[in-house]
């Protein structure tokens, strides 16, 4: 398939990238391209220029401390999936990264691209919200709860780039997705994280945008056990519906994904993988 015509730039540093973006609303930023290139094939967008971020060293690198895991925007999914220190600090994050799409996509796709695109069927938004991450951009630091604003919408402004994502290290966390068998996209997923004094439950795939499931959080705060959420029902009204899953089915799957994520958070990760 031929793509629409565009120019290509590969700036060597952040300032050069921002200069190219300035006053150029038809410019698009190219990270791993695993969503953007298919979108261009379908003529969903017609950019004047693609600004490839791959050469920008400031957007790379992973740092792991006792309190945070900090990941550069251009970090590939495969790098997070293979990172031993992330596996120690937040096993659920590594587990999530290792299950995105398939290996060839994980070798190209980036965390910055994923969260800036905010596909409702993407994995990373659940981790960003579940782990109470902070998204550091070229202009400010945006808390996860304010970053994802709607279907393919984020708080990012037109000339603002994601620099890094800072995840908080939880006491425990788990992620489970029920994926479409053919495409691998998330039908419903759930990321659960327990911090001192806080439980966060983030649901992806189910609605137009990742959201926190407040009633599950309250129930788990009172009783950290699958029993606490077993009888909670998600309202189908706000769910997505497509040929793969109805609103009612997705609402049902929220509780299923949450129970399995909780199982992993409670220590079932090794069981799950074995």
């Amino acid at each position, binding site marked *: 398939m*031929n793509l629409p015509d565009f120019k*290509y730039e*590969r700036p060597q540093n952040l300032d050069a990238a921002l200069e190219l973006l300035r006053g150029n609303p038809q410019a698009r930023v190219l990270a791993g391209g*695993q969503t953007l290139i298919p979108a261009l094939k379908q003529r969903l967008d017609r950019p004047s220029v693609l600004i490839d971020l791959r050469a920008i060293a400031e957007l790379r690198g992973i740092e792991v401390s006792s309190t945070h895991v900090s990941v550069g925007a251009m970090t590939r999914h495969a790098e997070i999936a293979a990172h031993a220190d992330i596996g120690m600090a937040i096993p659920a994050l590594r587990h999530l990264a290792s299950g995105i799409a*398939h*290996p*060839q*996509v994980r070798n190209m796709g980036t965390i910055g691209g994923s969260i800036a695109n905010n596909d409702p069927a993407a994995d990373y938004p659940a981790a960003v919200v579940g782990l109470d991450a902070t998204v550091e951009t070229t202009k400010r630091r945006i808390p996860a709860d304010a970053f994802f604003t709607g279907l393919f919408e984020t708080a990012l402004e037109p000339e603002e780039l994601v620099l890094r994502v800072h995840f908080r290290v939880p006491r425990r966390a788990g992620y489970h997705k029920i994926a479409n068998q053919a495409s691998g996209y998330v039908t419903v997923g759930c990321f659960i994280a327990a911090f001192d004094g806080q439980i966060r439950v983030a649901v992806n795939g189910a609605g137009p945008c990742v959201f926190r499931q407040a009633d599950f959080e309250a129930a788990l705060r009172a009783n950290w056990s699958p029993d606490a959420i077993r009888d909670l029902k998600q309202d189908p009204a706000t769910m997505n519906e497509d040929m793969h899953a109805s609103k009612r089915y997705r609402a049902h799957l929220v509780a299923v994904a949450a129970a399995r994520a909780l199982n992993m958070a409670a220590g079932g990760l090794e069981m799950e993988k074995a």
Partner: protein
Amino acid sequence: MNEVTITVNGVPETHQVEPRMLLVHFLRELCGLTGTNVGCDTTQCGCCTVHLDGRAVKSCTLLAVQADGSEVATIEGLGTSDRLHPMQESFREHHALQCGYCTSGMVMQGIDVVRSGIGHDERAVREALEGNLCRCTGYQNIVDAIMDVARNAPDSCGDGSVR
């Protein structure tokens, strides 16, 4: 037009390309390397799998300009019909192909699997083939072929440090 130099199977290939040209078309049309197939053209089937700087990627979902300055390995770089690469030999040995359309992608992905060090684990091998579709074999013999190389000739696939 942009001038692009990609080292393909060890040979620098310099061509003038439109930025919208996909890597797979660069390989097939400008380098004359037609072993890499276009299957679905939608990032699903894996027929176009090549190695970019040592890791398997889908060349239908990569622009040639993105690969400028990088090293690309294709099926043509592995062996000759007289001296097959151990992964190709293993595919023949295990009858891991019928029509052959997916095979170059499968072989390139198989090498990435062994190189990543997961070739001994059947479940991991099957998961790692999630992005490669085969409509003939039912995958069993492909899995066998890859695991055989992981057991008997892992060094032929390089080590996992390539990046």
